[in-house]
């Protein structure tokens, strides 16, 4: 049985923890709003880009001159996984779910006898993946100094990936990130970026004149499209991270509240018990006289 003083200290420390988690939750809420706005603002560009590239791709696909970014290297041997996580912790299961998805994919690829290469974006994912798959990690992108994710950051990552692709370092590239659904739900997503895949029916592109040629435009746009997809993923991830942190901190705040209530009850009970014991001692003392 802890003493009264211990209990009092304990309650005090849980109270200050609650203050911290509460503050973090509010900060995350503010950052979430900004991250969501950024993701929203980037959407028109990504959508148009995707539509145009998809249209072009469907008309060029299968022909001889299709760019390698679209047609692939013809092999399916080496896979590059770009795993995007957060730079900071205290955001619930955010990083774990991405890493779990990546891990499942890695094991599946390894079991199928493929070679795996990993690039991590964000410190937290690297820490988790390095433990088991350290020998496969070929690169790391540090975004801890970045306050607001800009297109430049995505471009840097894309440039690195494309350089590796041109040097024949891998055949297939997939990015892993959390798609933002709502504050309480983020969906871990794996998206193949090289060779490019497009879902859904592409609009008929024969409508347009192309200048220079269809192939020329496609060769120009595909690298940009990779950068755009990465940019979108980074923004989604940033919004998801804040969402996850917000709900994790909300939970923590509530748990701290529950704990304070419980501790207060224990504290009051033992105080009461102490008083009762003292009273009994006084009364029995008086009776003995």
């Amino acid at each position, binding site marked *: 049985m802890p003493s009264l003083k211990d209990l009092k200290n304990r309650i005090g420390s849980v109270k200050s923890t609650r203050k911290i988690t509460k503050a973090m939750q509010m900060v995350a809420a503010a950052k979430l709003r900004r991250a969501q706005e950024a993701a929203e*603002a980037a959407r028109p*560009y990504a959508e148009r880009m995707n539509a145009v590239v998809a249209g072009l791709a469907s008309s060029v696909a299968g022909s001889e001159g299709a760019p390698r970014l679209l047609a692939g290297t013809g092999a399916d041997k080496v896979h590059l996984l770009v795993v995007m996580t957060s730079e900071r912790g205290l955001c619930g299961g955010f990083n774990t779910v991405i890493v779990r998805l990546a891990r499942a994919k890695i094991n599946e690829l390894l079991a199928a006898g493929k070679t795996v290469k990993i690039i991590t974006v964000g410190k937290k994912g690297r820490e988790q993946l390095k433990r088991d798959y350290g020998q496969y990690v070929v690169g790391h992108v540090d975004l801890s100094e970045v306050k607001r994710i800009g297109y430049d950051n995505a471009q840097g990552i894309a440039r690195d990936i494309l350089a590796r692709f041109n040097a024949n370092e891998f055949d297939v590239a997939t990015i892993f990130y959390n798609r933002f659904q709502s504050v309480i739900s983020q969906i871990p997503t794996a998206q193949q970026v090289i060779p490019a895949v497009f879902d859904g029916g592409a609009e008929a592109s024969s409508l347009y004149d192309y200048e220079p040629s269809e192939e020329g*435009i496609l060769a120009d746009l595909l690298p940009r499209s990779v950068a755009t997809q990465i*940019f979108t993923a980074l923004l989604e991830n940033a919004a998801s991270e804040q969402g996850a942190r917000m709900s994790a901190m909300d939970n923590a705040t509530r748990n701290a509240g529950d704990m304070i209530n419980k501790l207060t009850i224990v504290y009051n009970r033992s105080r009461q018990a102490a008083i009762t014991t003292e009273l009994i001692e006084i009364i029995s003392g008086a009776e003995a006289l």
Partner: protein
Amino acid sequence: MADTMQFDLVSPERKLTSVQAREVRIPGADGDLTAMPGHAPMITTLRPGILTVISAEGSTEYAVTGGFAEITGDSVSVLAERGLPTTEMTQEVYTSMVVEAKRHHESAREEAGEEAVEAAAKLLADMVAMGTHIGLDPHQASL
């Protein structure tokens, strides 16, 4: 036929402008072109240059680099990797862009084939031309 068309200028980070335009002058990869309502549908890539939008309120100029323009009969969407009004274009921003183009040129010369060097050189030349048009000095950007 309508005498205006929807014009959108979008960068990866945000939508820069969305207006009804009478005429849009686009720095296409194969040469400048002007899109007016009823233009034949086309898609063209951009070179660094000045994009001019003429609407009911007058004309606005934007400096754009990289990307493409999608023209249909009643709308023009320009997706530029970087785009900003020429009035907001400072020497500082411009210098950093030129430096980047120069660096790209250098690295292309070292590693890539002749074609890439030519493309990078053209990009650099376009960049210089754009700066001269706005009245900024491309020579401040020393590598």
